[in-house]
């Protein structure tokens, strides 16, 4: 695969974007045309793209690009990324222990990128706790608060450029703390803590640590990405999944982020490479979802193992189910189409041959009619998305033409089946977490 690539998850996240990006970078390096940079274009530090370090130890990439283990692969955090400087420092330390030299030196941040702070986090957790059982499946990292605060106070939202403007940063942090963690009514503070007053560490302390992070990364303005795009292939690493998209996901069980190809295409166009990237969609051979929200094909009896995806305290339980062709087709459509598909967890499909099915349609509620497509609504119509959510929450999966029994393909037929659903060839098949577990030849994956 030559040239720029955009990697997007066609489900609810966790499809294996990280291992695909890792493989793309390793393969390009071996082919003598190393990836110039991995660029993040949505989400924030809540990503956890698991990749195996050369030593075999896993690293959940949160803000560093998942190509970091291929030496000489820098990370670019674009202005669409929500940057968490504290989590970045922790991740850099872990990467250092895994043998990555000078991790901070690999990172360039667009000055316009929003910063996530401890105050966003505190407000996020307070809000989720207040929702109680009606949680939205937030990660508790303050991503949504970062985005919503910037919408409410665009001029006061801390941005990466403020990392080297300490006075402005301090002013913005103090404002942020006062606004997001105010005196609580009834004596219950954010996080359920008794007492009132502003929560979290003093802004001075946060500012000092942010500045130290700012000293270690490189800050860039407009034009940086254009330079990278000219110098070599850039891999755009998406976070989360299309079915969680803020506008196209099943509201309100969504994320504060555009999870389609859109942001990456915008960046490419600004960098003089409009339309110049391969749009690679990633899906598993089955479906997973973290936390609440519609999941018609969920099957608690599926014994699929998930070493990295434990139930999250803030996100709620990790759920697994059968591949949902209806949802996958919808994802491809609202994402604007894919050029190619990376199919992961073929090993699981083989291991559970005969037990994993593909859902071809839904029956809604008491209805008997089989619905085989989710119709995309108008642009940015959350009311419509909410109506989809209601229908999907009442949907019963239909696996075969005649009944409710799972009827999936044999292990070897998965790539063809998924290619037919997605309307694009399966060009990468994965049978495990390591780069060596990937093959560009579906036939090869079949025979293994």
């Amino acid at each position, binding site marked *: 695969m030559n040239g720029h690539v955009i990697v997007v998850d066609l489900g609810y996240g966790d499809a294996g974007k990280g291992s695909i990006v890792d493989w793309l970078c390793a393969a390009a390096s071996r082919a003598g045309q190393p990836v110039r940079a991995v660029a993040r274009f949505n989400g924030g530090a809540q990503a*956890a793209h698991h990749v195996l370090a050369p030593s075999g130890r896993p690293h959940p990439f949160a803000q560093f690009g998942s190509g970091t283990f291929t030496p000489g692969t820098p990370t670019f955090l674009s202005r669409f990324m929500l940057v968490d400087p504290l989590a970045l*420092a922790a*991740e850099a330390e872990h990467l250092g*222990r895994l043998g990555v030299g000078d991790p901070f030196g690999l990172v360039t941040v667009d000055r316009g990128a929003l910063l996530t702070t401890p105050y966003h986090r505190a407000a996020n957790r307070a809000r989720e706790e207040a929702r109680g059982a009606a949680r939205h499946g937030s*990660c508790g990292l303050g991503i949504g608060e970062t985005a919503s605060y910037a919408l409410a106070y665009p001029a006061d939202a801390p941005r990466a450029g403020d990392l080297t403007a300490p006075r402005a940063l301090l002013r913005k942090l103090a404002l942020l703390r006062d606004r997001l963690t105010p005196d609580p009514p009834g004596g219950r503070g954010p996080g359920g803590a008794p007492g009132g007053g502003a929560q979290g560490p003093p802004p001075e302390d946060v500012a000092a640590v942010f500045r130290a992070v700012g000293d270690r990364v490189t800050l860039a303005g407009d034009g940086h990405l254009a330079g990278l795009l000219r110098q070599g292939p850039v891999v755009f690493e998406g976070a989360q999944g299309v079915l969680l998209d803020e506008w196209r996901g099943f509201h309100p069980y969504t994320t504060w982020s555009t999870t389609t190809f859109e942001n990456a295409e915008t960046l490419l166009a600004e960098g003089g490479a409009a339309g110049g990237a391969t749009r690679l969609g990633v899906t598993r051979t089955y479906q997973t979802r973290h936390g609440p929200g519609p999941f018609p094909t969920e099957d608690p009896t599926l014994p699929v193992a998930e070493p990295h995806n434990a139930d999250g305290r803030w996100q709620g339980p990790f759920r697994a189910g059968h591949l949902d062709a209806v949802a996958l087709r919808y994802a491809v459509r609202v994402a604007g189409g894919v050029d190619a598909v990376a199919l992961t967890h073929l090993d699981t499909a083989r291991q559970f041959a005969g037990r994993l099915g593909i859902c071809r349609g839904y029956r809604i509620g008491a209805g008997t009619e089989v619905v085989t497509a989710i119709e995309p609504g108008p642009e940015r119509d959350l009311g419509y998305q909410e109506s989809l959510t209601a229908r999907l929450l009442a949907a019963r999966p239909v696996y075969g033409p005649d009944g409710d029994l799972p009827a999936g393909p044999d292990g070897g037929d998965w790539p063809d089946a998924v290619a037919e659903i997605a309307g694009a060839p399966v060009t990468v098949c994965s049978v495990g977490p390591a780069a060596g577990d990937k093959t560009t030849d579906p036939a090869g994956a079949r025979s293994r």
Partner: protein
Amino acid sequence: MGSGYWSSDVYETAERLRGGASAFGYSDSGARSVHPDLDPFDVGQRESRDSDEHPESLAIAVLFDVTGSMGSVPRALQKKLPSLLGLLKDGGYARDPQLMFGAIGDATCDRAPLQVGQFESDNRMDRDLERILLEGGGGGQKTESYELAMYFMARHTAIDCLTKRGRRGYLFIIGDELPYPGVKPREVSAWIGDELPQPVAVRNLVAQLTRRWDTYFILPAGASYAGDGQVLGTWRGLLGQNVIELADLDAVCETIALTVGLGEEAIDLAAGLADLGDVGSAAGAAVQRALAGLGTARRALPAGRGTGATGAGGTRSDDSDLDFPSGSVLL
């Protein structure tokens, strides 16, 4: 998506960045950021003070370009440091010299555009030299952030030699490139922490700087823009005859010592060169060529300033008249 693998506690992060794990030790990741002791941000004043031990302190600051070809300067300084102090004291050029070292990079692209140590009376300043981060990058645009360093020296130094005795300190800037045309509020805010209402043109900065510091620019031959007419011309335009072209960088300590000796009128050039011969320095020829153009009697302050410095308490209240009155910066 996951649930936050990376601890984002602010104090754990501070500890992390301070260098708990080896990957973050100063010598390692420190290669990318300023040592806290040299960080000019929010430091108030760098002070050169009289003491019982050193009753006649004389402030001498040496700031050097650490980018590109200038990276060998700190090593040359370190090697010659003992002889610099020895020359100054033994030769009687200055009774109680207090030296400060600092480094200059490029605020438009470096992580450490300004690093400043403390004034020290003994070889403790050696430690500051070791901690100076060498950028190695930079250069190439023919411009470095000398103006940021000059701003710091003009605004953030307090020196008893001036306030108590009306004698300016000595500032040596060693470099081979041009200053930016003015000091920018954004950079001053980012690296020093002051809020400037508007940019200050470098010429105005020099006017204010030289009220406190007898300022020299040392341009080493063989440096990337040495002999460049524009670099030399610009600095001569700013500092007049106080621009020293030095053929041999190894002679930088001797050059500084003799310049101070000349300025203090402790020696003339011939006597200074003889002193160098006495201590076995091979730098004499280079120093002679470099300093031949320096006149004498540049020590007098502008009329009406500095000479009546001994009031009842022996000190002036402060240097406020030397500072930038708020809002009155010139363009």
